[in-house]
């Protein structure tokens, strides 16, 4: 079953008075459990596509379905709820809350959900920190961590709610290649372990090599969809 279904989606941006098309009638289906890489040069529309799938932006035309729900029919509140419960995010520049500790950053989405007891939360956060290999830094502030460590915290935060889908926009762009690869390895491991779907964008061929499937975008259109080397 497709966890993401993008149909005939166009997205235009207004730059002053000129309309700049970012996506042109793009259609894409992503199956549950995929580890999909979106590749393409800068300005090709990778980020726009991820934003539409991540329910943080709306298409000019066409429809986006995430986890079986048509996002154009949902209110802003509902979209936020969908993000909270079904989607995890990993950002290019990590985006941790500077004033919270590593553990608190990871716990944050669970607190927003408000379903679990304190002990359950603690257990889940502890297990994830261990899984991403930074349990020793649980009480540290993000500023005390290296870039790779921070991105591991971000991965843990994205996974903590056990979402169906994790979106990562250029997760390795701010990391050196070796660290970047280890973060991708971590993501891949999580994908394998829980079956969580990952969609990430990159223009780094070494990162693409880890993907199970690869979608190439140019000028807002999909120019190729291929099975990756890792598949």
């Amino acid at each position, binding site marked *: 079953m497709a966890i993401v279904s993008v149909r005939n989606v166009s997205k235009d941006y207004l730059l002053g008075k000129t309309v700049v098309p970012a996506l042109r009638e793009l259609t894409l289906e992503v199956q549950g459990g995929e580890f999909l890489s979106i590749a393409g040069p800068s300005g090709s529309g990778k*980020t726009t596509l*991820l*934003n539409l799938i*991540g329910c*943080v*932006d709306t298409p000019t035309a066409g429809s986006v379905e995430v986890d079986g729900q048509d996002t154009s029919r949902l209110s*802003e*509140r509902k979209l*936020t*709820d969908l*993000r*909270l*419960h079904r989607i*995890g*995010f990993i*950002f*290019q*520049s990590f*985006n*941790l*809350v*500077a*004033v*919270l500790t590593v553990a*608190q950053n990871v716990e*944050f*989405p669970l*607190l*927003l*959900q*408000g*379903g*679990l*007891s*304190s002990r359950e939360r603690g257990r889940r956060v502890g297990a994830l920190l261990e899984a991403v290999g930074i349990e020793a830094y649980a009480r540290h502030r993000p500023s005390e961590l290296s870039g790779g460590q921070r991105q591991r915290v971000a991965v843990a*935060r994205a996974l903590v*709610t056990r979402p169906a889908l994790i979106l990562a*926009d*250029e997760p390795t*762009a*701010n990391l050196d290649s070796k660290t970047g690869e280890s973060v991708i390895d971590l993501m891949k491991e999580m994908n394998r372990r829980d079956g969580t779907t990952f969609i990430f964008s990159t223009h780094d061929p070494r990162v693409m090599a880890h993907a199970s499937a690869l979608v190439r975008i140019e000028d807002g259109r999909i120019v190729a969809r291929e099975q990756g080397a890792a598949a």
Partner: protein
Amino acid sequence: MRSRIRAASVLLLIAFRNLFASRVRTAIVGGIIGLGAVLVVFGTAVVDSLNAGMARSIQGSLAGHLQLYRKDSPDPLQVYGGMMGSSRLEPIRDFAVVKRVVEAVPNVKAVVPMGIDRAFVSSGNVFDVALEKLRADARERLAALGPAGEVPAELDFRWRARKAHVRRMITLLHEELGEARKLVDVPPAERAERARQWADLERADSEEFWGAFDRDPLTGLEFLENRIAPLQADGGFMFIRYVGTDLAAFQGAFDRMKIVEGRPVPPGQRGILLGKFYAEEYLKLKHARRLDKIREAREHGRLIAKDEELQRWVKENSTQTRDILLQLDPAQAELAADALRRFLPSTEQDLGKLLPIFFRTDDATFDARYRFFYDRLAPLLQLYMFRVGDTITIKAAAKSGYMNAVNVKVYGLVAFEGLEKSNLASIFSIMDLQSFRDLYGWVTPEKEAEIAALKKEAGLSDLDRASAEAELFGGGAPAAPVVTHAGAIPDAPVRHERRARDADLFSRVYTQDEIDRGVVLNAAVLLGDPRRLKETRAALQAAVDRAGLPLTVIDWKEAAGSLGQYMTGLQFALYGSAFILFAIALVIMNNAMVMAMLQRVKEIGTMRAVGAQRRFVLLMSLVESIAIGLAFGVAGALVGAALVLGVRLAGGFPTTNDQLQFLFSGPTLLPRLGGGGFAVALTIVVAVSIASGIYPAILATRITPLEAMQSED
């Protein structure tokens, strides 16, 4: 639920961590809030005690808690007078009825009848005074004349001194008018009159006149009284403001009143207690008053060398020495001159030249000269126009249109505690009610009958304007206005008769019933429990309405008139400046919070992306504002409270001038820390910090998750 609590604690955690993370901003914003709280707590403590002090002073001096007056009066009642002078009030004809109704109302402790008015008091003419003494000596001398025309030595010595004093005054007048003649161009119509005056003066200042004076002093005196005394211009009338009242009831009800000199008027008798401030300001010899004021100013740190007002007083003292010269007879003048020559020191012979030198003081010489004035010169002078024990003549335009006059004895000087320096309250003199009624001249039916009978007896049909004019010189009780119409200057027998009547008036004791039954203009009501002022006012109004009395009841603040408005204005000014302060604080805080929000756009966008609702972001932002507001607000309020206590321990704010003393209702201001001020301060501070946080919080909710997606570079 527990998760909700946990979420709330994360909100707090994020808020405090954010505040801690940006310490400089927190310090600035918190500093503003803290300062605001300090000012509000301290300011309300000061204003509260100002208010309470002034309320006490006003209630305890004239106004009481409530005031009653005729509702058909043309003016509203203002006990201290308004811009236009005393209020014009319709008379309450029978106070006894009002008293009965008012005293029956619960919570009424006392009701005090009043008639507040202004009148004139004869300020006397030094010439008249000197001639009066000379005339008394002349009579005594005639009576003591031995068979061979010899006079006892002591009497003769006094006689010669008095004559010399009068002669000296005439010489001074002669010189002055001589100077004036050179300068003034006299209109033709007045020339004959002026020539006659000048001839009179020449005659009075001549050896022939004084040679003949001893042989026939009474003829000589008549000439001086009729022709020379009127040329002396200083005699006249001064304003006096008084409250005619039931003196016993007044003294019992108004705890702020104190007699600073003399004694109370004996119960039931006529009499007046002069306002101490009035006596100092208007009745005291101008030189002494100016010296007092300079001394007081210097005690408050002002210097003659640097202060134009003090320089003006010094100049006035050294140029206007005539008042002192006129008071001294030649023997006293020589004593004064001798003392001055040794004190200054100087070889100058003429007192008229020594005095200007003496009064031209500077900061180095002032204190010594001040002491010298009071030690050596003052005993030779009459410092006050009237003294305790004197009988003074008060005149006022009566209701009937005539000028009424009444003689009252001065029993003492009175002041209102806390308002000693107030020209609104302590300028008032307190007089008995009967004298007020005589001055007010309300013609009761009984009096009408009495007047008709007197007219019949005297064979007069009516009074015309000319004879009404003569009232000015009469000064009798209004019950018998025709008695003193015999001539413009009453002759000896009439004077004698008046003395007899005065003696009767001064010793007569009026019963409470007599005091109560008659005209008053308003009445002060004192309450047992002042906190129930509002309901008692309503009950009182209802009671007088039920009794069919055409009266209106007002509270002390209204009755204080401009003084009450002044207090309201003061409060308004203080709250106004506090408002401006907080408005500025609000703008600065708002700006700081917006800046902080802009710095955290990415973080907030991330929170929104990972699933935080707008409400969460709004709360997070508000919690931060409230936390900073509460923390620094409480701290500031505590500092403010400590400051108040510190000022109290240090003995309060001292007054530095009369205006402040009036404001403070006493020599110092002790700020009082009420729970109200503290609560108000906290409420305002928290309200302001919330208000300053609202706009940035709304801005924060507008941050979209897309912001999180932008890369940093």
